[in-house]
């Protein structure tokens, strides 16, 4: 008996990445990529996160056991960490990249501004796994450097992206935060695509959403906003160290979890299901 050829399914992460790429391609962003095994230099030092600084605790890291670093300290957690010697003598340890930000550095080293890139990629965090946390997941990095790129530009780009991604008018809210590689640093909240009224009050500074609908919304718990991304204006020292004069060029960087965005949009309830090779998930897309 002849079976009709049924079309297979792409993994939902692929679908989401494709969607993201399409939207950003229209905005003029190039897709860049980089290695998943990174050096400590690109993952931390070049991003203004030096060794032995508590900022390193913001990313729980998988370190590689490599034979090539003879002069490194080993602390009680068993990491290979480097001393802080002058750059010429620095040997960088290897790790699994904790964010896609190192690709910013790699790209800026090879390409002069103006720059518009996104980096979808797999990242790794040493974190206990549960329904919303996995040791491996996908992140999207964005970087835009030019003469007059400001926080206002960043807000605009993200609003266009979220609006196209969720197919409705979306708004973005910035809250003060900190990452060593941006200044100012911010957390990005996007308007709750489930309950949010289209006209978000600019004056709504984190109180209850106006709608009764917002008050009971299971997704945003009545905040009207969902925390999604970290972002900010690229720190002048980061630009400086890749040979870009921070007085002439400036811009923003942002990063968010693709898995999280996927789970929000499609209602997938467990992030671990994305990586156990189970077609019962994949065939739903």
């Amino acid at each position, binding site marked *: 008996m002849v079976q009709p050829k049924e079309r297979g399914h792409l993994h939902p992460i692929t679908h989401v990445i494709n969607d993201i790429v399409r939207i950003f391609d229209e905005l003029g962003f190039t897709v860049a990529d980089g290695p998943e095994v990174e050096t400590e230099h690109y993952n931390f030092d070049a991003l203004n996160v030096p060794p032995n600084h508590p900022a390193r605790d913001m990313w729980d890291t998988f370190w590689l056991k490599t034979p090539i670093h003879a002069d490194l300290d080993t602390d009680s957690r068993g990491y290979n960490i480097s001393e802080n010697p002058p750059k010429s003598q620095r040997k960088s340890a290897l790790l699994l990249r904790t964010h896609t930000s190192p690709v910013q550095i790699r790209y800026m080293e090879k390409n002069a501004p103006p720059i518009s890139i996104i980096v979808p990629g797999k990242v790794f965090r040493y974190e206990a796994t549960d329904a919303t946390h996995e040791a491996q997941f996908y992140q999207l990095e964005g970087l835009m450097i030019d003469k007059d790129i400001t926080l206002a530009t960043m807000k605009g780009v993200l609003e*266009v992206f979220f609006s196209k991604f969720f197919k409705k008018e979306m708004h973005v809210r910035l809250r003060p935060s900190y990452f060593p590689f941006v200044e100012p640093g911010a957390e990005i909240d996007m308007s709750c695509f489930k309950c949010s009224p289209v006209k978000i009050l600019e004056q709504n500074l984190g109180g209850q959403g106006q709608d009764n609908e917002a008050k009971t919304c299971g997704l945003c718990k009545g905040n009207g906003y969902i925390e999604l991304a970290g972002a900010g204006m690229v720190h002048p020292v980061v630009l400086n160290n890749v040979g870009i004069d921070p007085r002439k060029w400036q811009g923003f960087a942002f990063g968010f979890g693709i898995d999280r965005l996927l789970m929000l949009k499609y209602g997938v309830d467990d992030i671990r299901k994305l990586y156990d090779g189970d077609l019962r998930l994949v065939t739903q897309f």
Partner: protein
Amino acid sequence: MKISLNWLQTYFDKPLSEPEEISRLFTMRAFELEGIETIGNDTIFDFKILPNRAHDCLGHDGIARELSVLSGIPLKSKVKSRKWKVENTKHELKIVVENQNLCRRYAGRIIENISVAESPDWLKRRLEAIGQRSINNVVDITNYAMFATGQPMHAFDLDKLAKNGNEVEIIVRAAKSGEKLVTLDEKDISLDETMLVIADSEKPLALAGIKGGKWAEVDENTKNIILESANFEPIGVRKTSQKVGIRTDSEKRFENEITPELAERAMEKATALFSEFARTDKTKIGEVFDVYPRKRNPYKVGVSVSEVNKLLGTKMTEEDVEKILRQLGFEYEIVENPIARVLEIAPKYLGVPYKYGASISFDAPEFFDCASFIAYLFSQAGVQIPRICIDQYIYGENINKDDLRPGDLVFAATGITKHITRYESVEFLPGVKVSGGVDHLGLYLGNNEIIHTTEKVGNVLKEKMDESPTFKNIIGFRKIYGIDEPRFIVTVPIERLDLMSKRSFLVSGNKEDLIEEIGRIYGYEKISSSTPPKADKKPEINKTLYYANIIRETLVNLGFSEVMTYALTSDGEVELQNPMAEDKKFLRKELTLRIEKSLETNVKNAPLLGIEQVKIFEIGKVFSKDGEHTSCALAVSAQKKSPTAAVFAEAKQAIEKILNTHLAVQPPSGGIWEFNFDELIIKLPEPARYEIPETPTAVFKPISMYPFALRDIAVFVPSGTDENEVKKIIEREAGELLMRNDLFDKFEKSGKISYAFHLVFQSHEKTLSDEELNEIMNKVTDSLNSKKSWQVR
């Protein structure tokens, strides 16, 4: 960081706002709130203090300051009057700090004849509110002082220390290899020379900044104590803490770095509390022995309104910025003409001695070298320039001698050996070459006059440029641009290390830090999003992504579905130093291992998926000793009607056709076919445009963890009956537990059609029993049979 509202209220005369309002203020203007809970009549805020605000906000003092800024409610004016006085103590304290790089300040005070007892209720409540245990009044006071000021303290039992007559010596030194320490919580530590300890003349008493030792522990019999309020260098503290595996509230504050200025605040606070409720009528409070060799100069950072607007994308006015600086409580001045300010103050430093490598933070304005002098002058005008001579040379804009004006910089290559001639920039745009090198500079004052400092003369001097021996070999003139507007010069509050420059550590103290302060108070919600600029050139196409999508599409059209599996496995060539699990110690060297497992699982679920043959693929990175590359693996379940080899061959053909290339790799006759994706595409042409398939609209249906059950049903129906008619009835009767209803057989016989369906049942709540399934099947059968001329087989 847990903060008690009741405790915060003691900093203010006016009543504070409601907790929700305080939450909102901090969340939108300062930092994140991780939690908020009510305990009794108190509200406890749990603030997420990141490293940038750990310098000043790991204590109620700092949070109160911040709350005052955000809410506008003024802090209580500081009451300066002490209720106790310093007296002569029987014992004498001597403090020796052997390593002043690792210990930046050590303040010690003897208090004699105290009474160790329970703390008063109000203190116990304060500590317990923020999750701390009350031990005794001495320990509680040191903890209270820390959670108030952000400065850790420690107390030693003086009588347990080695004495020389009445003299007690405390030595801050590196431990010696082989020394040991037993901590207050009975942990045995082996010390080495990388660790800083507080010791008496005989042995270590405490791990500096981290944990006290048992030998000098304060207990209920303690009569005399030494109070320590000190400041330890962050990297040393963190490294030692990691080595011995001890993390404490004290260690946390030091590793994030705090200003040594806090030491006296904590000492003052603690002493007042001792005097209040830990004293006897014989108590004697000694003077503070304070070792504080290097005190930081006030740090100035400047910004113009244009610079603020340029970074944030706002349209603030000078008044807006001034209002915000006042709200922040920053000391500031407005300098209309920064260059004029530089020229105005330069002559004040004539005669100041030369010191090579002089620090701007600590040595200026008592000592300068040629570059620190210039950098200092500009910093006082709110302009940051690089610290090193050659960097300043690269930083400035090149001008001709004819365009030289007062305030410009003149660079020379003196060749005097004591000066280090550099040929390449160091910190500013590192690696920019200056042929011939540069090693000196001066500030042009006009009228052929130049002011500079040189080792040869030994101090800052003014001379005629063309008569100066140091400027015989001028290699260039430079102008500092972008500073012709009025600047706000802010003197950074001493606790705000995040706004100061620390060249050997995280770089901060640029105008961007100040702009962030201004921006967050202004309110990010006031920044209107601007339309993204139109892309003036087409973005490059990512080759890997493009071809990966082509291959994905090709395989999906052949019925393959995509999986993604874990990169960490139980076997491989690249091993992790700190794996999370035994079976995830290696990075995968191929996709085969895991996709094989995925195939097995999916074969088991095939009925639920409604497929006969499982065809899956993965595209992902694999790792070997030589590096990583992108691999592609196909897995097909064995099927008599559709042999694996044929499926692989079909896939290979399709891929070769669509890519117009030849795949060198031969697929196997069975099992998994894996090939190097990078090698495949390396010779392929650069793509012109993406071809991105449509994304689906889908709502995810949760996957049940309970097993599914299979039932088949076949029914004869009159000729001409559509299969969907039969399907509809089956689905209606079977209900929501029916997951799949697939036709697998159809034939005609004697004017009747036989339809046969595979049914798959599954519940989200339990494993379905045979009885339950039979009941459903009976319902379906009855309903089908009830239709005229329909007969279930």
